[in-house]
């Protein structure tokens, strides 16, 4: 907005100074504005197109004659396209438990790491840890999957009573590692944004360093840490490739323990989409609709949290 304003002023000045050049500038200005607008429209239109497409495809099986019962779909415990059985409840449960597990492990570990980097570690050590975290964030998810399959699944296989490594536990382990960079980076920057004066106040009252960190700095950064958590949830829930390789992707049944296989919503779509057709394909889109709704809720949560942070910021 600022820039647009400046640009306008420049063009206006030019117009006063020299009519001919002014006209040319106006023309240029218009071209650029249009380009900017088109760029901005591209993402908005993409979202609309994706939503329309996924929803029309995904809702189709539940309407018209020969409709599939929506409640069978949403509460079903079995997925067997060959027999026209499409139940995804056990996938929803699997996805949610895997995500919660990853959050329960990843948030404390990530927060501790962030506290360590932001408050405790000497600069030299930060210079090693931080690039490592950035690298972790950049690793493609298929590599995480390969690592999960080659290492974590093998380890689990050795101890699991089921004798199999692909499991809820494997998914939780890999997702935990995958969400760490998100949690760490966002938590760290919100910890660093805590005003020095809070720390001084705390030390001034005779608090130790650890007390200061946990009683005043972390609570003051809580909304940032919360949005880190919500973003982590989004990442874990939406992760596809890595979990597909290690989840086991059973065709039915709720997971009864950490050793059981799961079939996350995302793997369901990605495994079968390439060859599915007709109703089967529509059902995969329907799975996508459910996934999409989850992500939507998470985004709304995030907006709520960040707007709260903004309000706090103006008050200080």
């Amino acid at each position, binding site marked *: 907005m600022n820039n647009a304003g400046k640009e306008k002023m420049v063009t206006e000045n030019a117009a006063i100074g020299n009519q001919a050049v002014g006209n040319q500038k106006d023309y240029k200005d218009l071209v650029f504005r249009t380009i900017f607008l088109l760029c901005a429209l591209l993402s908005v239109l993409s979202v609309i197109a994706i939503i329309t497409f996924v929803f029309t495809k995904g809702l189709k099986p539940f309407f018209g004659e020969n409709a599939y019962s929506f409640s069978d779909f949403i509460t079903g415990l079995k997925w067997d396209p060959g027999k026209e059985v499409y139940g995804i409840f056990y996938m929803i449960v699997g996805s949610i438990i895997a995500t919660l597990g990853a959050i329960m492990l990843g948030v404390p570990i990530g927060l501790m790491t962030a506290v360590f980097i932001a408050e405790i570690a000497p600069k030299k050590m930060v210079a090693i840890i931080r690039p490592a975290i950035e690298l972790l964030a950049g690793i493609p998810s298929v590599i995480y999957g390969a690592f999960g399959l080659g290492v974590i699944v093998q380890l689990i296989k050795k101890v699991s009573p089921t004798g199999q490594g692909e499991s809820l536990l494997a998914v939780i382990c890999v997702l935990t590692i995958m969400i760490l960079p998100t949690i760490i980076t966002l938590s760290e920057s919100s910890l660093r944004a805590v005003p020095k004066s*809070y720390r001084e106040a705390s030390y001034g009252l005779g608090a130790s360093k650890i007390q200061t960190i946990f009683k005043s700095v972390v609570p003051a950064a809580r909304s940032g840490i919360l949005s880190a958590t919500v973003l982590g949830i989004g990442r874990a829930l939406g992760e596809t490739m890595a979990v597909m390789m290690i989840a086991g992707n059973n065709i039915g049944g709720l997971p009864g323990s950490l050793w059981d296989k799961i079939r996350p919503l995302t793997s369901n779509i990605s495994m079968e989409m390439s060859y599915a057709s007709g109703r089967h394909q529509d059902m995969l889109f329907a799975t996508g609709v459910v996934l999409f709704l989850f992500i939507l809720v998470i985004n709304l949560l995030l907006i709520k949290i960040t707007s709260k942070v903004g309000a706090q910021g103006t008050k200080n």
Partner: protein
Amino acid sequence: MNDITKFSVSDLNLFYGSFQALKNINMDIYKGKITAFIGPSGCGKSTFLKTINRMNDLIEGVTINGTVTLDGVDIYKEMDAISLRTRVGMVFQQPNPFPMSIYDNVAYGPRIHGIRKKSTLDEIVEKSLRQAAIWDEVKDKLKKSAQAISGGQQQRICIARTLAIEPEVILMDEPTSALDPISTLKIEDLASELKKDYTIIIVTHNMQQAGRISDKTAFFLTGEVIEYGDTEQIFNKPSNKKTEDYITGRFG
């Protein structure tokens, strides 16, 4: 006069890296008095204050030599920073309440020091807020955010928060510089009231304020104490020309 020495400072030098911010300071600060530090910006008043409760420990690259004793005990050699800061509370220039409720702000110190019992905390919070002359204004909104009240009220909450750890000495670094005249007067009255139970050191740029409330005044200039004595004497017949110039506003 039988003044009791609370702090005794001798041959104190302080360096930020290679920059010497305090030069050879010798001073006794007396119990139950209000001591004012005055002097132009950057002369080392805050630095000296932070030396007295070891807040300087938190800054990298600070070197300190000389001795500071509290009741005869060396605060750098024979005391740990945490117990020192519990005995020597600090109120900062900018009101800095935590982003928590008023109650939690005042209860912060006691909780840190292990007090968990609700009824005890309630008592401490009420007592401290009363002492800080803000109880009547906030007693109905103890659960409200301490950042959603006026700057003057926030500063008195910060004073209450300091009183809640029952220190022996209270250091105030320009506590009224961000406040309006009425809030300033309230805090001055408060300081005069608190003097009965506490030793107070106050940094101020406000000459009238120093004159109104303090018993002793120290004039700082470029890291040195130029003159230190009874406030009356410093303001009425300063022995050093520089002090006189500063007080009468002819400085610089």
